[in-house]
């Protein structure tokens, strides 16, 4: 066990002093859950702290820098790539207690929040004032804004509104050594100096601990409506999706599920679409009530030539929810298909989706595996769940081969290994396939500019 896994007496005294009472945890029982995340990997933290003030984090990062102690910031641990797993030991900093909404300003269209705030809680508070924070990862009800910022989370609405980075105007972070930096501001435009905000967003906890976020708000769209469509096969569905854009419509969300994913959901719940469907599209539009009705008609016309097998439109909140619920059940449903999965969120240029989907289906066939395919195809973002039983070593090896082939395929289509989940531990082995040595070296030097001793989330990402 390396030094990092053992807490020195001095370090323990420091933590007890600055994180009194239940603000620090040292026993394995208490610390266990802080060693894992939605990647299902685990490593025991060296210690866990739960700060409630920025000052505590500053003290901690000064001490950690001086003593070369690894620091792993943690939101709600819902990332799927092992970002919160203290693989080389370290002090886990849970941000859960720093979860206040500091300000909602309906005139400036700005909210200032602490990073531990759960995204859905902010959205609920905003909706009361008819305001809107656009990013909505499927984990919106249980992931934090700090986590969203550090993974640059996407979500259903990204096709129209962009990802988390497009909605962070400014932030405050503590960097190794304990100093506080402020980046950006609260104007919707700002070009003063280098864009440190952008650099921090998506940095997977490797540059500093975010302590405050200034978020861009929009007026809440007056209305939404959803159109669900089933098609004979994947290719037809993806062709229909392309024709929606070609018709000049930018939907709020455009989700896709292929046959195996549909079957998985049907296995645990009733579903609205016909049993023989080869693929389903869920298309949501937003705007004024009139615009929404007009857009739904335009979408219906646009997809006509792809001959949908079934269609259902919904305008009331409850009817819309009924169409979207199966999409949210996909994650739990997947585990009924097989005990284990390798989950990737590859992204390809939108025009290459059909090629990517065909290649993935061929890989599944060749290797005799069930691969669930679904995702935010409005952005070219495909979620690929390679289902298998890890206890069967042959099957596990085939799943690994499938993964390698799919990642290589997507890169050959000018895609990216990850559209929204990040690199973490899970994708680190593949990073060199996407980034050149020059780029990686540059990123390493960027990291060193903030974190010369490599204490922030070591072993992750870059």
């Amino acid at each position, binding site marked *: 066990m390396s030094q990092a896994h053992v807490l020195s007496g001095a370090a323990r005294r420091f933590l007890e002093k600055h994180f009194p009472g239940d603000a620090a945890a040292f026993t394995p029982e208490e610390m266990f859950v802080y060693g894992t995340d939605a990647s299902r990997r685990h490593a025991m933290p060296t210690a866990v702290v739960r700060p409630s003030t920025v000052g505590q984090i500053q003290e901690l990062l000064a001490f950690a820098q001086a003593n070369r102690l690894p620091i792993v910031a943690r939101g709600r641990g819902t990332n799927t790539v092992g970002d919160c797993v203290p693989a080389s030991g370290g002090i886990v900093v849970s941000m859960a207690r720093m979860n206040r909404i500091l300000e909602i*300003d*309906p*005139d*400036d*269209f700005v909210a200032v929040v602490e990073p531990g705030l759960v995204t859905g809680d902010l959205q609920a508070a905003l909706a009361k004032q008819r305001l809107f924070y656009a990013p909505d990862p499927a984990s919106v009800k249980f992931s934090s804004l700090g986590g969203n910022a550090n*993974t*640059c989370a*996407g979500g259903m609405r990204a*096709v129209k509104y*962009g*990802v988390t*980075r497009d909605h962070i105007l400014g932030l405050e972070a503590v960097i190794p050594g304990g100093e506080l*930096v*402020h*980046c950006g501001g*609260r*104007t*919707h*435009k*700002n*070009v*003063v*100096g*280098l*864009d*440190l905000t*952008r*650099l921090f*967003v*998506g*940095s997977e906890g490797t540059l500093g601990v975010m302590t405050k976020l200034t978020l861009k708000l929009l*007026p809440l769209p*007056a209305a939404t409506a959803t159109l669900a469509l089933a098609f004979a096969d994947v290719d037809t569905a993806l062709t229909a999706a392309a024709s929606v854009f*070609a018709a*000049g419509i*930018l939907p709020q969300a455009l989700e896709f599920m292929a046959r195996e994913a549909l079957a998985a959901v049907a296995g645990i719940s009733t579903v609205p679409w016909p049993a023989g469907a080869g693929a389903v599209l869920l298309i949501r539009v937003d*705007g*004024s009530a009139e*615009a929404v009705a*007009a857009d739904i008609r335009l979408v219906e016309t646009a997809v006509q030539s792809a001959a949908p097998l079934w269609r259902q439109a919904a305008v009331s909140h409850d009817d819309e929810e009924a169409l979207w619920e199966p999409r949210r059940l996909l994650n739990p449903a997947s585990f009924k298909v097989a005990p284990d999965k390798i989950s990737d969120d590859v*992204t390809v*240029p*939108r*025009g290459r989706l059909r090629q990517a989907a065909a290649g993935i289906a061929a890989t599944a066939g060749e290797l005799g595996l069930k691969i669930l395919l679904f995702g935010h195809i409005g952005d070219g973002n495909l979620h690929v769940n390679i289902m298998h039983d890890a206890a069967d070593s042959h099957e596990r090896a085939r799943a690994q081969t499938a993964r390698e082939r799919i990642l290589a395929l997507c890169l050959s289509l*000018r895609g*990216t290994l990850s*559209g929204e*989940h990040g*690199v973490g531990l899970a994708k680190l082995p593949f990073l060199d396939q*996407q980034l*050149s040595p*020059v*780029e990686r070296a*540059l990123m390493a*030097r*960027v*990291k060193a*500019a*903030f974190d010369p001793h490599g204490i922030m989330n070591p072993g992750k990402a*870059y």
Partner: protein
Amino acid sequence: MPLDASLAALLGRELGPGFTTAPAALTAAATDDSGLVLPPEAVFFPKSADEISRLMVLAGRHGFPVTPRGAGTGLAGGALAVSGGVVLDTTAMNRIVAVDAANLCAVVEPGVVTKTLRDAAAAAGLFYPPDPASLATCTLGGNAATNAGGPACVKYGVTRDYVLGLTVVLPDGEVVKTGTATRKGVVGYDLTGLLVGSEGTLGVITELTLKLIPHPREVRAVAALFPDARSAVATVAAIMAGGVSPCALELMDRACLGIVEELLPFALPGGEVALLLLEADGDPDQAARDIGRMEALCRDRGALAVLPAADAARREALWDIRRQISTRIHESAPVYLSEDVAVPIARIPDLIAALPALGRRHNLSLYAFGHAGDGNIHVNITGDTECRPRTLALARELIALVLDLGGTMSGEHGIGLAKRSFIDMELSPRSISVQRSLKAVFDPAGLMNPGKVLP
């Protein structure tokens, strides 16, 4: 080290005919639209990233600075050579490599003029939204390096939001590709985001992959005349809060209207009137509905006149008025300083209200216009030859006020040379030192556009 005759001769041999020390070329590269004059010692017009790499390797070996330059329409002096050396002019790299309708993106060389791409995209039914008022001349490389904004940004976002990936020659001559051709990507630090807006201080952009979107089917414009600037900008705040999403919301104050008077489609009344230019786009019904709601809001808030543009030609005429303003202000006086402060939307009226007293105190003429919808107001200061110190004093006071209002000293033009001495009013010492260390990561020898942005 200065570029002496023997080094210049060597560079000529190594770099070929794109390299020149001809006086006319030096004079042309000595100015941009900042009003500053700083001639370089040589100018290089590369045709490829390889040639740029070669220049950077030579710069490293011989220790001369390199200053990237697009069309030189920058207002902050970013493209001017502060300490001699070579200006790297990208205008010969002006190919549109691809407009890809299936993937909704374009790949371009940095010297492509913004309007050329917008037109090429439109011909394919696609839209590249960033539209700096200089779009007929400025380059996409310059737009990315300054993170340019424009009227459409109130709805569509700034240049940063459309740059998916870049190819960049680093100061040591190495070539990196950042970002992706996809709409999303979270692999690695966001180097694309860091390079956008870096004003040529981190590397030379040699290729851009830009996001395109479906072209809106219809655009409608209307001009609304208000009794004063305050009531105009109060209307702006009301529109932004009202749930309509205008695709342009431009302000022109009385001083601005005065210098374009003969272009106006109405007789300019006396008093402190101000004009708003509003646009909505989308499908025809929606554009009509949105423009209708904005017209109603303008009337409710006391507009003296509401003048819809009946057709494309009249719409273009309104934009011509708007675009003429900065040129004419520039030409109207020997000394000219362009500030482009931005404040949170609700604070625009406070900013506008403070301007007349500010001008009077320093005895200078002020013009206020710009992208009111995102709080970005261009405040231009003019005066006679001896007034430069006064313009700087006024600028300093203006920036202090804007920062008090929760704003920023630059919404889109950047810092360059012109605003460098003010930057520590906005950024903390720690933020500046972090930025310096990032600059050193890319450019340890300090050869890329030295003397810019950071103090």
